[in-house]
């Protein structure tokens, strides 16, 4: 028993992006507390954007300097390896773009506490512009911080904390919509309750695994597994419970139920953030847990994930067909995409290069899908009725005639979702499917054929999915405009920038995917730290 506790070593350089984001978040809170109301926004906006940009810059620096750490940082709590850095970069870009959307007027309630329709709400409205509460920004920053932490967490405890840090602000953000506040609050409550519920499962799973392995560090678990002390039910229960928590976050069937409601109810910029950033982070975490932690257990989890992946793709695409609300439809489409990503997760086993291939595929997919999603939601924010965004699809009829550019852009995003060639989405899909097939054809894989089968399910699902994307295009271009069509809001600079960037990326990557693929390749080549 030596009393001296040696102080933990923290690789500040490596963790700098995290620290900046969290730091900025805390400053944001202080600003909320002390800065005069009329100043806050003008402080928050640059603060938030700069912190995100700065974090991104630091990520870049690490990559360019080739300082990608190959060992866990912060006493093994975090693993800032190639994939993490890539995911960080993606998350930071996406959240930066989302913040630009957040800046746009009129998405967020002036004062969340005020009762809808009550006098004080009116009052808050009347002294609008700068007078509104600005807690949005620090909340977003905390959420982003959580997102960064989530995929980098190297032990389950850290992952749980990250999960909560990411989720809690989002629960709140969901409830801050300015229009249709009842929906917004309902969404927020549902998200909160279900989120908490699922994270409880995650935690219980952690406990079980801890009970089995005697540690919560992924590498430790992996070690314990390779030590091969039989298949302890503890472990299996734990595994499933962890799975519940994670799959809930990426919205895989049968844990997808929250997605449409929350996506519809939440303020659109936040929906964009969840649909892009959260998904990226969650998938990263899933990969880390299943591949780093439970890599030696793939014989057991792959069949299960197979079923879930197939189910998710089918449920997502089939249910989307009959949706009449654009955000709900996109929610279901994101469920379907989660399914496609799971196909990629299925492919991460076997030889090292196979891992790299599928990892690359997933990273690429996440990047391009995230960007397209943000773009799509950005367009959604612009189509407005007096009562707020014109969510109902019937309102979109004939948009192609009234706003050709906007409609064209949206159509292009939809085609990207559908995975039509010469859009980024196609290459994402191709990458994942190709990885799956190649993993399926690895020698000595008993369920290799099943992998190909999963891919076939995937293509059929995406054929079905194509239907509802195309349906929107039909509405926009082939139907006559409604007499009292929705107004096309004059977009703020920010929104314009968002749409432009997303379009640029979607087109550019569609024409020359190597641009992003190359990076994903480098990131993936140095696998997760095991």
């Amino acid at each position, binding site marked *: 028993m030596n009393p001296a506790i040696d102080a933990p070593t923290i690789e500040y350089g490596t963790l700098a992006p995290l620290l900046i984001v969290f730091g900025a978040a805390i400053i944001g809170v202080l600003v909320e507390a002390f800065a005069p109301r009329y100043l806050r926004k003008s402080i928050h906006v640059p603060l938030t954007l700069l912190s995100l940009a700065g974090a991104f810059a630091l990520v870049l620096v690490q990559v360019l300097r080739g300082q990608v750490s190959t060992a866990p940082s912060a006493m093994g709590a975090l693993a800032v390896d190639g994939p993490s850095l890539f995911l960080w970069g993606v998350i930071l870009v996406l959240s930066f773009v989302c913040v630009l959307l957040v800046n746009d007027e009129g998405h967020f309630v002036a004062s969340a*506490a005020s009762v809808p329709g009550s006098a004080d709400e009116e009052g808050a409205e009347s002294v609008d512009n700068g007078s509104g509460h600005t807690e949005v920004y620090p909340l977003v920053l905390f959420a982003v911080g959580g997102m960064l932490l989530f995929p980098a967490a190297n032990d389950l405890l850290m992952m749980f904390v990250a999960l909560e840090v990411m989720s809690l602000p989002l*629960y709140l953000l969901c*409830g801050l919509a300015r229009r249709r506040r009842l929906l917004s609050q309902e969404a927020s409550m549902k998200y909160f309750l279900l989120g908490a*519920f699922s994270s*409880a499962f995650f935690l219980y799973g952690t*406990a079980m695994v*801890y*009970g089995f392995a005697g540690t919560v560090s992924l590498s430790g678990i992996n070690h314990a597994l390779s030590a091969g002390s039989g298949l302890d039910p503890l472990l299996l229960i734990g595994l499933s419970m962890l799975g519940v928590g994670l799959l809930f976050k990426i919205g895989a069937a049968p844990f997808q139920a929250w997605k449409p409601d929350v996506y*519809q*109810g939440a303020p659109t910029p936040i929906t964009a953030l969840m649909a892009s950033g959260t998904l990226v982070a969650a998938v990263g975490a899933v990969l880390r847990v299943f591949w780093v932690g439970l890599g030696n257990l793939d014989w057991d989890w792959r069949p299960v994930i197979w079923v879930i992946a197939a189910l998710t793709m089918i449920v997502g695409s089939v249910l989307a067909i009959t949706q009449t609300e654009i955000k709900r439809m996109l929610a279901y489409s994101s469920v379907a995409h989660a399914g496609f990503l799971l196909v990629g997760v299925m492919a991460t086993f076997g030889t090292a290069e196979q891992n790299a291939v599928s990892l690359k595929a997933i990273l690429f997919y996440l990047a391009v899908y995230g960007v397209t999603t943000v773009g799509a939601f950005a367009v959604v924010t612009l189509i407005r009725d007096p009562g707020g965004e014109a969510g109902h699809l019937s309102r979109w009829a004939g948009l192609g005639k009234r706003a050709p550019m906007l409609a064209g852009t949206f159509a292009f995003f939809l085609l990207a979702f559908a995975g039509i060639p010469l859009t980024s989405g196609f290459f994402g899909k191709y990458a994942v499917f190709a990885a799956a097939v190649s993993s399926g054809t690895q020698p000595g894989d008993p369920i290799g054929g099943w992998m190909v089968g999963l891919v076939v399910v995937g293509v059929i699902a995406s054929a079905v999915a194509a239907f509802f994307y195309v349906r929107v295009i039909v509405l926009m271009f082939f139907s006559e405009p409604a007499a009292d069509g929705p107004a096309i809001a004059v977009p703020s600079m920010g929104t314009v920038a968002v749409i432009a960037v997303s379009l640029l990326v979607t087109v550019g990557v569609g024409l020359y995917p190597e641009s992003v693929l190359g990076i994903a390749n480098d990131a993936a080549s140095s696998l997760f730290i095991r």
Partner: protein
Amino acid sequence: MTTHYLVLSGLLFAIGAMGVLIRRNAIVVFMCVELMLNACNLAFVTFSRQVGNLEGQIIAFFVMVVAAAEVVVGLAIIVTIFRTRRSASVDDANLLKY
């Protein structure tokens, strides 16, 4: 020896889960979630005793903190909902569906 505790934690977890499924009042539902978390805590502590390292107990502390944070957020949300709808029943809030 420890199995009893595990069984207990399991029971607590189950009760919590059931509560979430059965109770209507948002507050109660939320409390049940807390109950599930505490079940986890019990499991952690037990296991930490079983495997003979302190991680589990440390985790328990973390969990409590997180739980506390959850309470803050949760109550805020529930209160707002209650103020607008004059009801804290989870079932009343189902405008979003299909």
